Structure formats: C-alpha cells, structure tokens
C-alpha cells in the first residue's frame, strides 16, 4: 500500500534524469574513449581494429608543443585573471551602494555570448581598428600595428573572455566572508598584509579554487578565440581537436587528443588543489 506508492514517485523522479544523463553524457563519453583506441578509415569513418597509435602519435614534438602551448596559455590566463580579478572582486564587494547593479554587471558577461565579446576585441585590435586608429592619430606610430593573429592577441582574448568566470565566484566568496574575522585579526595585532595572508586568503579559498577551475578548464579547450584572433599562426589543442573532427576527419585521433586533454587538465587541477590544501593555514574548504 504505502510502499507501492513510494515506488511510483521514485520511478518518476529518478528515471528521466538518470536515463538522460547516462544516454547523452556517459555513453557518448565512453564511446569517445572507445574510439580513441580505434583507427581511422580511409573515407573518414572508423575502422574497428584496436590500436594505440593515436596515443603514441602524440609523443612527437609537434603535438607536444601544441599541448604545452595550450597549457601555458590556459595557465597564464588563469594567473592574470586571478591577479587582476581578486583585487577587483575585493574592492567591488566593499561597495555597498549599488550592490544589485554590480551583481548584474558581473553576471552579464557570464550570460552573454563569448563570441560577441571576442568580436569586440577584434574590432579594437584589427589593423583598421580603433586602437590603431587612435595611435596613428596621436602620432605615436606611423603604420598600423599588426596586433591580431599573434599569441598576444589570443592572450588578450582569452583573459577578457574568461575574466568574469574568475570574478563571479571570487566575488561571492569574498562577499560572504564575515568582516568580523578581519577585525579580530587586526585586534590581535596582525598587520594588514598578515591579515590578508592568514585570514582573508584562506577564508576566500573556495572562491579562488572555483574561479581558477572555471577559468582553466574551458581555457584549455576554447578554440574559436585562437581561431579568430590567432588565425593560422596559433594552433592550440582546441583547434587541433576541432580540425580532426570537422576537417581532417580523423575521429579516433581527435578522440585520443580529447582524452589526453581531459587527463592533463584533471591532473593539473588535482595538483593545484593539493598544493592549496597544504599551504592554506586554515584549510577552510
């Protein structure tokens, strides 16, 4: 009687979500792992003979460079985003007056198309763009600078796009922090720097970790920013993977690249979290 009714509700609430997640998330991902060990067919299909050649291919210098470049760029992006973002979040959280407006302004980039935001920078940096125009008019340079299609442009594009993803979690974490802790530390004699290091940072660590992860992971796989702002001069993992799937049609290789990319990202994140865990004085998680 009672037991039967519970089962019915249970089924209704559990089955749809489980089915969908398993079928559209787990299975496709497992399939990717599977085909990463298969071979490319002549016409772009998949030949089901197992091999590890896809993985061994990545050992060559060319591919190692691509991986390395991607990680470096993702890492630099994260560092810059954190470096500029933390003070920003900290100062912004101090402003009490227009909190709602600030929250909206912080969230808006998160909700808008990152493509559009990238486009804005293309407009600014292109040879006939705003920045060059301003520099020429003021006489600082005579010829327009080639700013697009460089690693620098890609970096700016990445930092700009990922910045909100760092700031929002930081802001939430900092905002939540009870200022009483800072006052207590100061009351006990800690200098501002010491207070910051031993109280503020550990207490906002969840925000820092969240922000770094939210920036680093997408950064590794973002391909349209290097595509648009770096052109063929910049080849990163994202572009490489995309090419395998949409142009070169070497799906098994693309799958293998993806798997390695995920692994690298996960390992780096684990290392990061471990380091933070050890050094955090309070270990507040």
């Amino acid at each position: 009687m009672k037991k039967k009714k519970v089962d019915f509700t249970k089924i209704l609430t559990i089955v749809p979500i489980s089915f969908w997640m398993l079928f559209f998330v787990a299975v496709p991902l497992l399939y990717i792992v599977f085909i990463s060990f298969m071979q490319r067919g002549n016409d772009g299909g998949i030949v089901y003979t197992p091999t590890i050649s896809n993985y061994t291919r990545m050992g060559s210098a060319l591919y190692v460079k691509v991986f390395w470049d991607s990680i470096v760029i993702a890492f630099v992006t994260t560092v810059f985003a954190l470096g500029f973002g933390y003070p920003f979040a900290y100062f912004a959280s101090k402003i009490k007056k227009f909190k709602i407006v600030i929250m909206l302004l912080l969230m808006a980039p998160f909700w808008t198309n990152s493509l559009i935001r990238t486009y804005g920078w293309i407009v600014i940096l292109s040879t006939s763009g705003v920045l060059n125009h301003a520099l020429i008019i003021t006489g600082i340079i005579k010829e327009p600078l080639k700013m697009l299609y460089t690693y620098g442009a890609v970096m700016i594009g990445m930092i700009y796009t990922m910045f909100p993803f760092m700031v929002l979690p930081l802001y939430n974490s900092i905002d939540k922090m009870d200022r009483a802790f800072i006052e207590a530390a100061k009351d006990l004699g800690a200098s501002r720097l010491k207070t910051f290091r031993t109280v503020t940072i550990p207490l906002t660590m969840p925000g820092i970790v969240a922000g770094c992860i939210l920036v680093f992971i997408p950064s590794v796989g973002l391909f349209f920013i290097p595509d648009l702002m770096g052109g063929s001069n910049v080849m990163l993992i994202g572009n490489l993977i995309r090419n395998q799937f949409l142009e070169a049609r070497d799906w098994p290789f693309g799958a293998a690249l993806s798997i390695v990319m995920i692994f690298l990202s996960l390992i780096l994140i684990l290392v990061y979290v471990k380091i933070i865990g050890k050094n955090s004085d309070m270990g507040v998680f």
Partner: protein
Amino acid sequence: MESKVLRRLERAYVILIFAFLYVPIAIIVIYSFNATKSNVVFSGITLDWYTALFNDDDVITALINSLTIAAISTAISAVIGTVGAIGLERQKFKGKGAIDLLIYIPIVIPEIIMGISLLVFFSALQMDFGILTLILAHTTFCIPFVLINVKSRLAGFDMSVEEAAMDLGASKFTVFRTITIPLIFPAIISGAMLAFALSLDDVIINFFVSGPESTTLPIKIFSMLRFGLSPEINALCTIMLLATFVVLILSQVTKLKKKKIE
C-alpha cells in the same frame, strides 16, 4: 580607519576593470548605428544595418532556429531537471552518487568535449544532424543548470508544509501540484532562464552537432566574421546582447521576488 585616498584608488580600479569589460561591448553597440562601414570613424546614426539584417533571410532563419532550439531545450530541461532534482534530493537509490556526479559533467568539462562526444554518438546512431540533434545537445547541457538550481532550493525546503498538506487530505500528487511546485517555482524559472540564455549563446556545441540546414545565430555570426568585419555583425551582436540582458534581468527579478515570499 581607511584613508580616503585608498578608497578612491580602490573605486578607480573597480571602474577601470568594468570599463575594460564593457568597452569592447560598447564599441560594438555604438558602431552598429554608424552610417559608414568603418569601425573607427563615426559619421552618423543610422538603422540601415538593422534593416539589412531583417532582410537577410539567412539571419532570420538562424534567429528562428536559435529561438526554437532554446525554447524547446529549456522546456524539456525544466521538466526533467525539476523532477530529477526532487528525485536526487529526496530519494535514496543505488547509483545515486554516480548520477549526482554525471550532472556536473556538462558544466565542468570543456564544451568541445561535449560537442565531439555528441557528434560521434549521433553519427554512430546514424542520425541526421539538424534541429533535433541541436535540441538534444542543448537540453543535455541545460538540464544541470535547472537541476542544480532547483536542488539547492529543495535543500532548504521545510518539509512540514508538505506534511501539513497531506494531513489536511491532499494526496501525494495534489501536494506536489498545490504546495511543492508553487514554492520551488522561482528556482525553476531562474534556472530555466539561465538555460535559455546559454542555449541562445552557445557556439562550440553548435559547431559540432548542427547540420547544413540548421544554422544558429552564433554560428551565423562566426561565419560572418570569417568574411570580415561589417556593421551588420555589430547590429546582430547588439540584438543578441539585448536579448540576453533582458533574460538576465527577468531572472534576477524573479529571484528577488522569491526572497520576499520567504
């Protein structure tokens, strides 16, 4: 306490960063009204580029596609996400931990991985790539946003109102209909709105699971960019920005309203 100078510097820094964030966007919007094609010299206000957009069949198709996909994906993910949130928050079952984990995967992994995995999967199923595959893909990454939102609302839910309703004669389904849903509704809506905006703005996944006939707006922008800059792109971007901003504000208003009820 803190010196005024320091305060001023802090504020200046905040404003500077906000400017950094919004100047590129402002430039796009402003120059969408530029009378000439230049992205530098501003010669006069015109709506020509917007009218050109409305006359561009491709753009209109892409717009309709994007809206349709977003609407349907949001609707489906709202239902599955809400019901799933109730299941995950209140029920115990084998494999619950695994499903809990799976929910986070679409949010945490790079979109490109989701894109290629679905590409490969749909191919293996020999499906045609088009609106359907886009809807399935979008729903997949929208569900977690609704689910997590509703789940966190359920976590703080006072079960005694449900018991009271049962006590007064309501069957389980009636309780769900008259008590549970009305009370979690704001969470469903704000989750759905986020899902809608994300679906509308998605670029990477669209790359992989769309077909030749089923362009979406972000893809259209991307291909227009390939051809070079033009104020039409600015106009298109401005419209998209406006749409997203409206959805964002609506969702925040819902959140604030919800706080009043509690």
